[in-house]
């Protein structure tokens, strides 16, 4: 039997080669592509039950920023972004934005805290003894935080020197012209050996004595903090002080204490932030940030620049700071007899010490923490932040106690790491000396911002007006929410301690492009908040859409992703250690967030890809089955003779199957080798085992394809085989008055063959339509519901390759069908040419047959593909129809390629011989 099989193969090398090629293509494609079914899949565990949705659905952070507690228990601390500085590049942001399904990708770059100088004022008129000619009032600030539980006495006290003696004030102190408020000019005064321009007190005898402006000369922090006010009390009881506009009097005596106002500076994409949380609509004064806010050269009024090439970045400020900090003042007033007592700080202290003092406590003074610009936003005031001292406080280190309570790890105070000299504008906050919980890194002359040294306010926003703010109490993981904690019936908030347990939300916002354009750091972005398109709420389809986007982001950027949907407030009990300023250890109740779902990247089989690769084999089976059927049909006479000679039906079937199986074996070996070669060429991993799989696959395909024709050949009686072999191929009548009609009639003559070709094309076109539809009409992915389960279909490059291979095999099947039609109806074509048809007309007939099959297969395939996509997505976007039309048209046009082989075969027909044949 083997000799018979080999003889058949040798007799028709062309056909055998065509079958071999088809099988090699299919098995090679299958062997290579199946390696890519294993893909990274983001597995979601847990059920989203809360019907809540925040401003964003997916949170993207740099790898390594997820805390152990978050990993193990899904717990996220409030203001979790506060401790994250950079880690995401602009390129990764661009990648996220290009992904299908991403509606908004809003980056935020946390830059750090800056400390702005401000002054708090208090009326201390009551501390004045109007009977004294000269008196000193010592003002001792006490800083209160943690709802009054922390009280920090300032080591530095301030002094007010109050004299009833007339005081002559220097005018224009910056100039050295010696002018005084009485219109006279005087030589420089000498205080502590240094010449200067000090106020002059007129003594009883008319002599003049300089009131030396004492204080720390070299300690910058003390210079910033120490205040020594000189006040003249006139006969009308009015208080005179020197101001920038000259001496001015007031009815009340006010003292001003310098304070540092912390601001958390962040950079955002204004457009994305407007879309995500409506930040543009929360602007209450000035204007919103433009996407491309250029940094401008910074100039003082005299045209000088603080740093060579210093730049100023436009910024948006929050109108309020959620600071839990107050300052209380205590005054001690004592009489002094002469100026010598107050010539320096030591003298001042000595003057007060040991004397009977009038002590007053002014309680809380809160106005300092809402300076005029914050309380009454006015851009005209144009506050600005010195960005040259950026303090970056890291995340908390929290461990879980056996009791389930959380325990933050205490660290050294932030003040310890304050740089020598600090900012030349703002003093070190007293509360920075409290226990720290975050590792603070002070970045003086920040490399982060390069030449940008300060901000300029262009607008003020009210965080309570943010779109998402309405849900702030319910939806966690918001960006601008102030962190609070409750303990002992008190509510604690952040204070000026940069490494305190509670942190502030960002309050100074720059445009991200300004930072990026400055090119100071490659990866300034701390997090990207992503809103997913098409998410209607918390339902399986929406959840799958979110999962798919998260998966894509993880796969393409390598960043850590979190699904925010379904997250819920999870109050946690936190054991807060006692502070350095009297705060006892506290058991806080804090609103943490529990993530609704946990994610894991797993290796999974992409079932959709596997299905597409399976389509290759399906079309290959169609291709082979058609070819084997044709071969059996052609050899009916021969098979009948074999039957007459005594071959059993089983032997005949085995001969038919064996011939194709032998080809399959050969194709499998070639396909396996080709798969290994392709793998090496394209740098794909094709293990030998999988390449070897090509052999059983090819043989299996061959056997499956040969089953029906072999069964048909075997079951027929020898006589019927002979009869059928000699019978004309019949037709079904009907009018055939045109070439096109004849073509259609011809297709009906062998409906099974026509159906095989159309089906092969249908499968390829349907696959291609589906892939193109997902890419074009659904922007890369479809998420829908299938049998009650949410599923997502996402197109990968290998899928496109698979459908293209399938379509090519479909076209190959069509070409083979047409080729068989030509060869089996060769005498008809010869007759047509003999009776006056041109070769072109005959080719038209073949072309019409091919195009008719092409139309049938391509249009129905496109419809199937579109219907499947629309059904899965539960929507039919207009683009879907265009996609289907375009793919169908492309497939029909591609069928012209399938016409080449039959047309060439037709041209080679030996007309004369065919006509002369019996």
């Amino acid at each position, binding site marked *: 039997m083997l000799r018979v099989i080999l003889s058949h193969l040798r007799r028709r090398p062309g056909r055998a080669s065509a079958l071999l090629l088809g099988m090699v293509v299919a098995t090679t494609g299958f062997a290579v592509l199946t390696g890519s079914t294993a893909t990274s899949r983001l597995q979601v565990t847990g059920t989203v039950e809360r019907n809540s949705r925040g401003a964003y659905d997916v949170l993207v952070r740099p790898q390594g920023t997820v805390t152990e507690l978050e990993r193990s228990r899904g717990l996220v601390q409030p203001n979790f972004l506060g401790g994250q500085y950079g880690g995401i590049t602009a390129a990764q942001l661009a990648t996220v934005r290009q992904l299908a399904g991403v509606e908004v990708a809003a980056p935020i770059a946390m830059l750090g805290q800056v400390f702005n100088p401000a002054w708090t004022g208090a009326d201390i008129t009551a501390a004045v003894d109007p009977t004294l000619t000269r008196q000193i009032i010592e003002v001792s600030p006490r800083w209160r935080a943690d709802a009054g539980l922390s009280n920090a006495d300032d080591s530095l006290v301030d002094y007010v020197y109050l004299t009833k003696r007339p005081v002559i004030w220097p005018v224009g102190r910056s100039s050295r012209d010696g002018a005084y408020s009485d219109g006279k000019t005087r030589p420089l005064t000498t205080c502590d050996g240094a010449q200067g321009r000090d106020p002059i007190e007129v003594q009883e005898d008319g002599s003049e004595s300089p009131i030396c402006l004492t204080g720390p000369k070299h300690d910058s922090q003390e210079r910033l903090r120490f205040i020594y006010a000189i006040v003249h009390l006139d006969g009308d009881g009015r208080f005179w002080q020197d101001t920038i506009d000259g001496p001015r009097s007031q009815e009340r005596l006010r003292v001003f204490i310098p304070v540092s106002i912390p601001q958390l500076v962040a950079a955002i994409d204004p457009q994305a932030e407007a879309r995500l949380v409506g930040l543009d609509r929360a602007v209450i004064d000035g204007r919103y940030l433009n996407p491309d806010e250029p940094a401008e050269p910074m100039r003082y009024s005299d045209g000088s620049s603080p740093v060579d090439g210093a730049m100023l970045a436009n910024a948006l400020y929050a109108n309020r700071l959620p600071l839990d900090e107050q300052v209380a003042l205590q005054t001690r007033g004592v009489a002094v007899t002469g100026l010598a007592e107050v010539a320096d700080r030591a003298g001042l202290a000595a003057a007060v010490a040991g004397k009977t003092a009038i002590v007053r406590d002014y309680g809380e003074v809160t106005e300092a923490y809402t300076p005029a610009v914050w309380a009454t936003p006015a851009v005209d005031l144009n506050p600005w932040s010195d960005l040259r001292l950026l303090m970056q406080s890291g995340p908390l280190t929290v461990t879980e106690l056996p009791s389930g309570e959380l325990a933050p790890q205490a660290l050294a105070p932030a003040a310890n790491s304050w740089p020598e000299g600090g900012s030349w504008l703002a003093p070190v906050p007293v509360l920075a000396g409290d226990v720290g919980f975050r590792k603070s890194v002070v970045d003086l002359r920040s490399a982060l911002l390069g030449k940008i040294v300060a901000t300029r306010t262009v607008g003020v926003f009210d965080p309570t007006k943010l779109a998402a703010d309405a849900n702030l109490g319910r939806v966690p993981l918001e960006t601008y929410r102030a962190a609070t904690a409750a303990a002992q019936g008190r509510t604690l908030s952040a204070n000026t301690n940069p490494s305190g347990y509670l942190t502030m939300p960002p309050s100074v916002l720059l445009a991200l492009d300004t930072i990026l354009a400055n090119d100071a750091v490659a990866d300034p972005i701390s997090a990207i908040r992503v809103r997913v398109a098409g998410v209607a709420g918390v339902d399986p389809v929406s959840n799958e859409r979110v999962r798919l986007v998260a998966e894509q982001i993880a796969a393409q950027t390598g960043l850590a992703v979190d699904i925010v949907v379904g997250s819920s407030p999870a109050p946690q009990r936190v054991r807060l250690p006692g502070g350095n300023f009297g705060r006892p250890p506290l058991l806080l109740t804090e609103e943490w967030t529990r993530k609704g779902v946990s994610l894991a990247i797993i290796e999974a089989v992409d079932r959709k890809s596997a299905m597409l690769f399976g389509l290759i084999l399906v079309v290959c089976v169609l291709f082979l089955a058609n070819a084997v059927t044709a071969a059996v049909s052609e050899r009916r006479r021969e098979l009948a003779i074999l039957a007459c000679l005594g071959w059993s039906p089983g032997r005949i079937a085995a001969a038919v199957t064996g011939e194709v199986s032998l080809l399959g074996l050969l194709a499998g070996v070639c396909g396996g080798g080709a798969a290994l070669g392709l793998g090496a060429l394209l740098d794909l991993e094709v293990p030998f085992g999988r390449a070897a799989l090509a052999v059983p696959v090819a043989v299996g395909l061959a056997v499956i394809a040969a089953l029906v024709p072999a069964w048909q050949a075997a079951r027929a009686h020898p006589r019927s085989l002979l009869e059928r072999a000699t019978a004309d*191929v019949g037709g079904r009548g009907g*009018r055939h008055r045109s070439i096109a009609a004849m073509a259609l009639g011809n297709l009906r003559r062998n409906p099974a063959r026509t159906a095989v070709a159309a089906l092969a094309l249908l499968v390829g076109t349907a696959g291609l339509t589906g892939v193109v539809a997902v890419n074009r009409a659904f922007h890369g992915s479809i998420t829908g519901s299938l049998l009650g389960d949410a599923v997502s279909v996402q197109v990968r490059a290998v899928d496109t390759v698979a459908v293209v291979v399938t379509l090519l095999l479909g076209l190959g099947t069509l070409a083979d069908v047409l080729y068989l039609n030509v060869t089996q109806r060769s005498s008809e074509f010869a007759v047509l040419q003999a009776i*006056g048809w041109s070769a072109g007309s005959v080719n038209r007939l073949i072309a019409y047959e091919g195009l008719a099959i092409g139309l049938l297969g391509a249009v129905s395939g496109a419809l199937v593909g579109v219907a499947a996509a629309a059904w899965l997505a539960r929507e039919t976007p207009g683009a879907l129809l265009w996609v289907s039309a375009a793919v169908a048209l492309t497939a029909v046009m591609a069928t012209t390629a399938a016409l080449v082989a039959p047309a060439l075969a037709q041209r080679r027909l030996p007309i004369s011989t065919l*006509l002369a044949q019996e």
Partner: protein
Amino acid sequence: MTDIHLRLTDVTRVFSAGGASITGADAISLDVAAGSVVGVTGPSGSGKSTLLHLIGAIEKVDSGSITVDGVEVTALRRRSLTAYRRTVGFVFQRYHLLPALTTLDNVLAPVLAYRVRYDKVARARELLEACGLAGRESAMPSQLSGGQQQRVAIARALIARPRLVLADEPTGNLDSGTGAEIMDLLLQIRQQFGTTMLIATHEQHISAQCDRLVRLRDGRVAEDLVLTDGEPADETLARISGLRP
């Protein structure tokens, strides 16, 4: 002398098969008058079909020329050859009807590939009627007898109103009675349309009805007999029966 319709001058065609050369036509020269019926006889392999195929431009000559109505067919380009073929009616021994087409559509088949000025369907019906197949227009070839199929083939050959009909063993597959009917039909057509006919046959009773008899042997014209017009058939048969087949 009647107008010369067809002229062959030293027409030669050699085939190669399995390394050997087979001469299908060997310097054949022949003049055929318009409206005449020429019988081409000879043993199998003598070149009868080849001669008809060469005249019908199905085969190309290796040398020599064929002129039809003053046009040198052997010098025509491919497109002109197709146009020429449309002026030639072919009738084959095995009929070569298109099995998927009805009788009527088979007759129409030659004129489906190009436009004609006449009502081709009406003409096809007329031809079928003339060929004795009225009422069988919708029949499929498989439903017709051999004689009927050959009548359809004759009707098909005449649809384009050819001035030249080439019939290759038109009665070869038919019994003698049916063969005679077919020959009568061909002669009737010649009578009616003045069509020139070359009929390849090896049957003497068919060739006896021709105006002229050309006998081929090994691709050459071995004998060329003009049969006397009005001569009784029996006498003609007797005259050509002495010829070796």
